[in-house]
């Protein structure tokens, strides 16, 4: 297929879904997708990432059979990451696999499709109001086609203990596509820890096109983790859009380990004064993987703080992209924003494009940004070898050391442990490759 054929292919998949009140937005989103089509590398936002491999293959919605999913979850050590979990298979909510152990009273943790029908009062004020389906093709496609997903609602003052949202693609009968969606709403002064995990049943071709909207009312505190561990033949495109109320605190950690082609947009906007936003990211690519990270922080109100640290490790012939924008609006005085991107190249054929951007329309601000691209320090490798470690172990230790100031910030202990294990495994394979080379 070419891009135009692919567009028609997806337009035809549009189902008439959900309650009537969602129809106008869905229709509009579909129209926008029809108008926008798939982005090309001529689009500034897609300059370094071609979606050509993705449009080439006709993908059909998966069947959402959840047989075997539990085994997969256990195999990958995801079972005990959090006491609560919700599972979405091929974009469909699985009631059978949901496990809610210590949900505080008044918290809603449920299927998004169900919430749209039964809790319209909670969903309608927020659904599809933040992720930009008017200008972003993939958000438009998700908004039009998303069958289901997850809805979390934490009432004022409540604390939601860690909950894992698992998004699984089965690709049971050939390449599939799913458009999982999550809507997370934290009312005034509430708190939540949410771990989003994206994975496949096996090493297959499929495409996950996700959208997550996070709404933090005044003084809400959100601690979010995204673990992208898709199949290394899979495609992953996702947007996380957060809106922070007055004095709200958002911390987001994005870990990109999987997928052949991944694009992750993480956006946050301050809609109230005094908010605090931290975006951390770690992308680790090997072989022919391509991972593109886009972030945007909109300082729309005064006295907000943002801190951003993204780190990349690229080996083999893989490619990483970092494009981070901090946008300080006219009335956002006393903005304090800092953005850093650091990259480590483990092979001569690996590549990274880094583009930190500041746009500032107020004079009374404190902003800084910077990016670096480097290689392993040969003297450090020599030092470690002189103490008895072989090259592979030395490279592994130094590379993990590079990642440590991101992984070290993961608060839930079981998640930190899981992540360290996955990362060590991947980095060791990369170190082994480098040693041979």
């Amino acid at each position, binding site marked *: 297929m070419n891009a135009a054929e692919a567009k028609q292919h997806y337009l035809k998949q549009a189902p008439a879904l959900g309650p009537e009140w969602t129809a106008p937005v869905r229709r509009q989103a579909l129209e926008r997708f029809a108008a926008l089509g798939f982005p090309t590398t001529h689009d500034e936002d897609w300059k370094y990432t071609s979606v050509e491999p993705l449009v080439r293959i006709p993908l059909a919605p998966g069947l959402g059979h959840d047989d075997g999913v539990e085994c997969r979850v256990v195999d990958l050590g995801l079972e005990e990451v959090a006491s609560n979990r919700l599972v979405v298979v091929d974009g469909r909510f699985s009631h059978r696999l949901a496990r809610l152990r210590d949900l505080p009273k008044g918290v809603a943790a449920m299927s998004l499709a169900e919430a749209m029908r039964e809790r319209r009062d909670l969903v309608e004020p927020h659904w599809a109001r933040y992720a930009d389906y008017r200008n972003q093709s993939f958000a438009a496609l998700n908004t039009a086609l998303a069958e289901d997903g997850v809805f979390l609602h934490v009432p004022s003052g409540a604390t939601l203990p860690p909950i894992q949202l698992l998004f699984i693609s089965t690709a049971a009968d050939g390449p599939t596509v799913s458009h999982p969606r999550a809507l997370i709403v934290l009312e005034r002064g509430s708190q939540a820890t949410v771990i989003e995990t994206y994975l496949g049943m096996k090493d297959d071709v499929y495409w996950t096109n996700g959208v997550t909207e996070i709404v933090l009312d005044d003084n809400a505190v959100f601690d979010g983790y995204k673990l992208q561990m898709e199949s290394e033949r899979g495609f992953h495109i996702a947007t996380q859009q957060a809106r922070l109320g007055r004095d709200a605190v958002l911390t987001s950690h994005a870990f990109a380990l999987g997928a052949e082609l991944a694009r992750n947009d993480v956006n946050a906007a301050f809609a109230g004064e005094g908010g605090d936003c931290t975006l951390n990211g770690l992308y680790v690519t090997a072989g022919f993987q391509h991972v593109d990270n886009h972030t945007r922080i909109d300082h729309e109100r005064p006295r907000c703080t943002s801190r951003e640290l993204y780190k990349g490790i690229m080996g083999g012939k893989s490619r990483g992209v970092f494009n981070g924008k901090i946008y300080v609006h006219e009335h956002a005085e006393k903005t304090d924003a800092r953005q850093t991107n650091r990259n480590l190249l483990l092979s001569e054929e690996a590549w990274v494009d880094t583009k930190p951007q500041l746009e500032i329309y107020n004079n009374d601000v404190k902003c800084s940004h910077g990016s670096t691209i480097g290689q392993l*320090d*040969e*003297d*450090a490798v*020599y*030092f*470690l*070898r*002189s*103490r*008895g*470690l*072989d*090259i592979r*172990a030395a490279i592994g*230790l*130094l590379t*993990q*050391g*590079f*990642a*440590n*100031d991101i992984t070290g910030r993961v608060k839930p202990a079981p998640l930190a442990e899981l992540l360290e294990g996955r990362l060590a495994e991947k980095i060791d394979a990369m170190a082994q490759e480098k040693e041979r080379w």
Partner: protein
Amino acid sequence: MLVIKNLHANVDGREILRGIDLTVDPGEVHAIMGPNGSGKSTLAHILAGREGYEVTEGQVLYQGKDLLKMSPEERAREGIFLAFQYPLEIPGVNTTYFLKAALNAVRKHRGQPELDAMDFLTLVKEKTKLVEMDQSLLNRPINEGFSGGEKKRNEIFQMALLDPKLAILDETDSGLDIDALRVVAGGVNALRSPERAMILITHYQRLLNYIVPDFVHVLSEGRIVKSGDKRLALELEEKGYGWVEG
């Protein structure tokens, strides 16, 4: 234990070592002294296996084996230890984790069982005492935020932990105040044994007041121009390097 025969070596095409001959036997402590640029540190790093040196002539035998054919990690596992003149700071790499990995790599090679966390900590406790090192430093990344003295203590502590057969101390005295020097030297002296050989590389005689060598060699322009016992160091201190260079 170590036999260096007519060793010539280049760095970036420039000849730094021009025919070194040196034999070190177990239990001996050799001091190699010399002015800046005489090739002292080059010799130390060639023995430890750093890349970037071209050996053009001569050979080095360690326990009867061709040392120059061995990788740095093989040398370490076979018992060679180099205490660095400028210990690196390595952010993100936890010191304890690194030491445990290094020790177990060495132990495995020597046919000893790997140490578990408990035994390792007991050993660490014992060895940190030797150089009066604050154990909490080990929870930090390698040398990060360490003072000059703490970095040097950390080197000697690593030496104690890895229990080498041949220890090479490259300018361990540089940057140390007199108290730190006394502590570090005390640690080194405690590690002297009939099985272990040591090579002390130093610019100044000062260190040799605390660690008394069996032999002193003077290196000048890539050659050993004079050898003797500890009295040679005192004579050098008095007359300066000009005395041997001429």
